[in-house]
């Protein structure tokens, strides 16, 4: 708890004096931030645990009590409206304040079964906490996200799962995609007494909770622990390594299940359309992040000396910050429009800057330079006007041995016969419901995916029982 306000350089060990391997007490560190190219082990061994530890430590009991005491128990509270899953926030905070965090967790989970991960990853500064009346009053909202984490941590720590299944209905539902949308849908369906089979293309369930979210937001294997916890409801079977379109078709699913939910997220990425995109050292940020999330030893994960990230969303920020935390010497995010247009919140942008990442606005890449592998990227400045983006004549070049593309994820592998609006799935259609990032209305937020999965389950339930 105490010490979380340490100045940045004490918290993240980026400025460790360079030591060369020879005669060093830390023989593992063979490289430094200055080593050219894409190499592992740029930092002393112990720096990784520190850098990738909990970025916002859990509240202890005393802190939780003090934080909970600040809630005014507003009527028709604006925070509830601002939460995509409509958690009864004043009630759960009052339950914490009166010494029953377990009851608080029940209040949270009954609206948002992934309340644990949401407490860690929600950009609360643009959701519940932005709406808090104490944000308006004092610029210091009640710490809703951290209190939510406190309650769910206490209850999970005690092994509580305060839900049980209704009498079996005999109905079977297929859920495609074990991300937040699919899991929330599966849990709610199981609760209503339906049998659920979840088909997941990847080796592990969790979706981007497991393969995407920045690792310092979900430390200690939390994503898998939460999946295991969620499955305790019973009646949910997860089949990993099964891909819709490759191993099974939507028609087959519709034929053998009473309903189908698609929560397949956005499996594709946008192309850069810049010259030299195919050079070695240029890759999709989401792949790098997934690899990072699955790495058992971060000191073995290679990263460039000069990293350039192209994009303006959460993925760009996470790729940049984590590159820095892995020991890259310079990391630069380049975004084609102004600061206010970035989809990463101001809080996240600040976090990036505080982590030592430089953000350049209003520039687009023209070409990746280098002989076979990336050495630099040439950009041109842009102007954002009513007629759209115009390229300005002035260019500049950034040194880059590693380039991450983070210019947006797109729908991929969706069954052709489904309605697609604005590049996303629209439903429901017959027996098929959709939700989460892949669906129209998805906001690229974990909490929105949970809300849509839950609501789809209610709609499926209503339809199956009518």
């Amino acid at each position: 708890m105490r010490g979380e306000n340490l100045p940045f350089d004490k918290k993240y060990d980026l400025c460790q004096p360079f030591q060369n391997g020879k005669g060093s007490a830390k023989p593992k560190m063979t490289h430094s931030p200055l080593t050219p190219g894409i190499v592992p082990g740029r930092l002393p061994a112990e720096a990784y645990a520190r850098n990738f530890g909990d970025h916002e430590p859990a509240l202890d009991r005393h802190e939780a009590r003090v934080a909970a005491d600040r809630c005014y128990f507003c009527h028709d509270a604006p925070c509830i409206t601002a939460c995509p899953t409509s958690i009864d926030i004043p009630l759960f905070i009052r339950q914490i304040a009166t010494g029953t965090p377990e009851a608080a967790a029940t209040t949270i989970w009954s609206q948002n079964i992934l309340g644990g991960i949401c407490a860690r990853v929600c950009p609360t500064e643009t959701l519940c906490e932005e709406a808090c009346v104490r944000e308006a009053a004092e610029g210091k909202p009640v710490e809703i996200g951290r209190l939510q984490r406190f309650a769910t941590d206490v209850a999970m720590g005690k092994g509580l799962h305060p839900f049980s299944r209704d009498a079996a209905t005999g109905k079977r539902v297929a859920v495609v995609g074990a991300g937040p949308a699919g899991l929330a849908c599966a849990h709610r369906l199981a609760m209503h007494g339906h049998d659920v089979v979840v088909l997941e293309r990847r080796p592990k369930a969790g979706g981007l909770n497991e393969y995407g979210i920045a690792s310092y937001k979900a430390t200690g294997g939390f994503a898998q622990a939460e999946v295991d916890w969620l499955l305790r409801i019973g009646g949910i079977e997860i089949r990993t390594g099964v891909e819709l379109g490759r191993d099974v078709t939507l028609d087959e699913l519709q034929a053998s299940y009473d309903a189908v939910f698609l929560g397949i997220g956005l499996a594709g990425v946008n192309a850069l359309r810049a010259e030299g995109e195919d050079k070695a050292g240029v890759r999709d940020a989401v792949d790098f992040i997934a690899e990072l999330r699955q790495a058992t030893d971060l000191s073995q994960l290679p990263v460039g000396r000069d990293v350039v990230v192209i994009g303006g969303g959460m993925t760009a920020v996470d790729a940049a910050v984590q590159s820095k935390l892995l020991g890259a010497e310079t990391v630069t995010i380049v975004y084609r429009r102004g600061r206010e247009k970035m989809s990463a919140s101001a809080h996240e942008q600040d976090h990036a800057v505080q982590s030592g990442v430089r953000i350049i606005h209003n520039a687009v890449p023209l070409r990746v330079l280098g002989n076979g592998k990336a050495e630099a990227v040439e950009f041109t400045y842009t102007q954002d006007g009513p007629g759209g983006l115009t390229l300005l004549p002035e260019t500049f070049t950034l040194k880059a041995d590693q380039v991450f593309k983070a210019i947006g994820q797109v729908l991929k592998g969706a069954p052709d016969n489904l309605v697609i609006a604005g590049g996303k799935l629209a439903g429901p259609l017959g027996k098929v419901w959709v939700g989460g990032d892949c669906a129209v209305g998805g906001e690229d937020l974990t909490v929105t995916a949970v809300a849509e999965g839950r609501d789809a389950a209610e709609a499926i339930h209503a339809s199956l029982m009518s």
Partner: protein
Amino acid sequence: MANLASDFIGIKSPNPFWLASAPPTDKKYNVERAFEAGWGGVVWKTLGSEGPPVVNVNGPRYGAIWGADRRLLGLNNIELITDRPLEVNLAEIKEVKRKWRDRAMIISLMVPCDEDSWRDILGRIEDTEADGVELNFGCPHGMAERGMGSAVGQVPEYIEMVTRWVKKHSRMPCIVKLTPNITNILAPAGAAKRGGADAVSLINTINSITSVDLDSFSPEPMIDGKGTHGGYCGPAVKPIAMNMVAEIARSAETRGLPISGIGGVTTWRDAAEFMALGAGNVQVCTAAMTYGFKIVQEMISGLSQYLDDKQIAMSDLIGRAVPNVTDWQYLNLNYVAKAHIDQDLCIKCGRCYAACEDTSHQAIAMSADRTFTVKDDECVACNLCVNVCPVDNCITMVPMAKGAVDPRTGRKVGDYANWTTHPNNPSVAAE
């Protein structure tokens, strides 16, 4: 989920949380919303006799005191009984009770102190299908000047007489609501019992002036430059109410008389404490007026979790602390404790040090690096440091084992012994 279903003197409700007779229970609109939120029952805002209803002031009727962060700690009011016509109230009570069969509906009454008035009003309410009546002998302002409310509640003979009339003219269970504006709560409680009351409820509000405007020199709440004493309620009155409840629960004269606990109940904990001291259920007013009806959901989840954690039924909780409420003279003078400061939890504010050094026994040491430690040879275990510490559980009282030597007195911790046998007690020495 523990079973919170409550049976109070034969009146059933899904939980033991009732709204006390006051603005929250003033009309159908409120009561239905309260039931929707989950309240187990209500005591309808006090009804008076037929005829022109009472009038209220047209300026402020509430005053308050606040704690840190403007948290409302005490509320006072100069409101009278219902100012709506009797027929309107009766029609609404009947309608709501029909719609909400499982909830408790009690009618609070206050009419002039003669048998005819009581017989008449009891006749009028018969048809509402309400579950019981509560006699408001508590209201300390306005109505008392007219010979009602606490003017009756302060005279045990009147309480007994009116209670008898009510039992004579009605089949309904009868709860007598007591005023705390007396010196000994056992007198009115005993009178209610003798008169045949099925239960008592307490407390009503306490005479009070919450503040004085230092520009206009008027008490608050101020009406055209003047103020009057109002009835005090809310968290601040809870300790006073709990003592009165406990006295009734443990005294030979009143033991066994069912009690509905009222006064400052704000959370499930407050409710559980009242119940442990012998209350069969609780009534709430100020907390609902401060936070709205939804608080009952925390009360339900909290009490239920508590009972589950303790693995006891609600009936086991009721009265469980009563045997432990005793007279000072029976407290064990050989119980020796020492304060202990948990250094991991300590935030080094030094409040314990200031309190002990300036006003207690100089038993806390402070080092140059602000480490605070208890001097066991000075500590008398007064608990002041615990009370002023801002961190929950940082300072605790650790009892000494029997046979251990108290470094303050040099004496061994002995067996139970109290004042009645203490050598310093003059009445013992006289023997």
